[in-house]
């Protein structure tokens, strides 16, 4: 049953965003490094632009100044008037959209990597927006296979627990590496992110040279729902992520498994109807977003073969 490869235009312009959250240090450090000396990220026939998206937050080493930039790219915000009166991150979102977008238009950059860290034990996580986005799916598959294969051979310092692909339509596609505390730069996490980007750029270069990437199956985790902490009538947290669940990202959580532990030692169990795979477990930034962890289910996607148009 032969289907011809899906054709995509060459990826000519690539952006690498760091500091979308000003205290997620791997991306901030890598982008600052590459702004000074970008030779490492150069590839034939590709214009690669490293860019700090939230400089004020980076300066203060804080997640955001007025509002979360990573939630600011809504149609309402992007068309809002008021310029200097708008929240800082809304102004930034408009500026970034002008330079690198608008999304979906011919002027938009071909590929954007948004670099993030998490306090959760997620290893290297590639975030995919759409299951039908064969170009990104093929790229993530290439990254995953190459990174895991070269793990001990070429990169003894690369100690990513795993490379997982998450399918989630409420995120800008990006790269999330953890665990790393906010405001801290861990060498192994930094190197892992660097290696992932190297493979991503290699893929783009190969693709632009005309290499065909055959059809492949890719295991992904599809995001289902956000689970909040149990709270009292005043909205205060009354339990913590259970020690059995803490650091257990990507491992199965079965109905009846411990999920939360109250401050006086009582265990609360997962009450769902089936096994799920939790992730973003105990992410610092999500306390204010009412998220203790996120549930996902495993899926196998098929990516069509792709080739340069």
């Amino acid at each position, binding site marked *: 049953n032969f289907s011809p490869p899906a054709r995509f235009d060459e990826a000519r312009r690539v952006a690498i965003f760091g500091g979308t959250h000003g205290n997620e240090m791997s991306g901030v450090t890598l982008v600052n490094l590459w702004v000074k000396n970008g030779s490492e990220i150069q590839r034939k026939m590709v214009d690669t632009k490293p860019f700090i998206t939230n400089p004020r937050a980076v300066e203060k080493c804080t997640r955001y100044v007025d509002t979360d930039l990573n939630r600011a790219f809504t149609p309402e915000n992007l068309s809002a008037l008021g310029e200097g009166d708008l929240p800082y991150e809304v102004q930034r979102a408009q500026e970034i959209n002008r330079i690198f977008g608008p999304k979906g238009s011919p002027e938009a950059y071909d590929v954007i990597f948004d670099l993030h860290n998490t306090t959760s034990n997620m290893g290297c996580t590639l975030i995919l927006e759409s299951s039908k986005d064969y170009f990104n799916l093929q790229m993530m598959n290439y990254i995953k296979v190459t990174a895991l294969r070269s793990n001990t051979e070429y990169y003894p310092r690369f100690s990513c627990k795993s490379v997982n692909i998450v399918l989630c339509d409420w995120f800008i596609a990006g790269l999330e590496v953890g665990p790393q505390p906010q405001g801290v730069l861990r060498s*192994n996490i930094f190197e892992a992110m660097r290696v992932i980007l190297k493979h991503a750029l290699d893929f783009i270069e190969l693709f632009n040279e005309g290499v065909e990437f055959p059809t492949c199956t890719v295991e992904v985790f599809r995001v289902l729902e956000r689970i909040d902490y149990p709270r009292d009538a005043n909205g205060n*947290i009354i339990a913590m992520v259970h020690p059995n669940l803490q650091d257990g990202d990507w491992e199965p959580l079965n109905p009846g498994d411990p999920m939360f532990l109250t401050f006086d030692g009582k265990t609360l169990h997962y009450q769902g109807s089936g096994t799920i795979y939790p992730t973003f477990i105990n992410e610092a930034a999500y306390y204010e977003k009412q998220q203790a962890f996120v549930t996902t289910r495993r899926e196998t996607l098929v990516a069509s073969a792709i080739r340069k148009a």
Partner: protein
Amino acid sequence: MPYRARFGRKMECVSLPPLSNFAICGGTHGNELTGVYILREMQKHNVEKVGSVSITTVLSNPRAVDACRRYTDRDLNRCFTDDLLSSPITESTPYELRRAQELNAHLGPKGSEEAVDLLCDMHNTTSNMGLCIIFNSADWLILHICKYLQSKITSMPVRALQMDLPLSEAFSVDSLGKHGFSFEIGPQPHGVLRADVFNTMKEAVDLTIEWLQQFNSGRTFEGGEVEAYTRWKTVHYPRDPTTDEITAAIHPQLQDNDFKLLQPGDPIFLSLSGETVKHEGDALYPVFVNECAYYEQKIAYHLTQKSTLTLPSINVKKD
């Protein structure tokens, strides 16, 4: 070898006055969440008196806790030197300096007879330090509490760190008490509450209160030895000479290896361009390796020596 034989003469048992009031502080840094939540639970359960010990719970920096930040204007835990506590308050005085003077009035005054008998301040660190008991001067009481906690807590290593500053220069909130120390537990990211860390801090606080009650009721605590890490030497990150930006990360072989003896030639930094920097000089014990809050002063870690401190037996002085 029993210490009696080693030192030739057993130290005399020391009698000390009872400890009737105990202050426990949390949220001195607003994003170190364990202490904040321990306090919340103690306040919810109206913990005010346990046997002979009356307990005061204090949220040190409420504004920083609300914002989930280390501090609002300046680090509260550096505001308790004698100079800063006596500096005049004006319109433009930073919030934390004012707050330090309020706390001094409430729990001190520092160095006076009215000060609380024992003050314990709860902290977290992003460094892999387990449970540390940090104190300024090595008084017998605190060392006995260390010894007691070390004998009871098994969930993580328990270590004693001594700073040894003259009292006038002691800058942390625990210097307000007649006796004072901090619990420091890591690793935990700032802004995160881990159940395992919470449980260990709770155990440490409960055991401290238990010790106080036993002490007050007349039990003699046998002397012995406690190992403490002392004589702190600060190591800064390598920096770009023109921009002062940090140019290296803690080397993977040092990362998470607090308290593991660092020998000359061991790697300490890995530069962003891939070069390894090695430790030179004496073999010492690193602490606070890659603590988030230290980036501001470009501090990578501290180096310490291990000392063995000898304690006499102690009991409560009977009138």
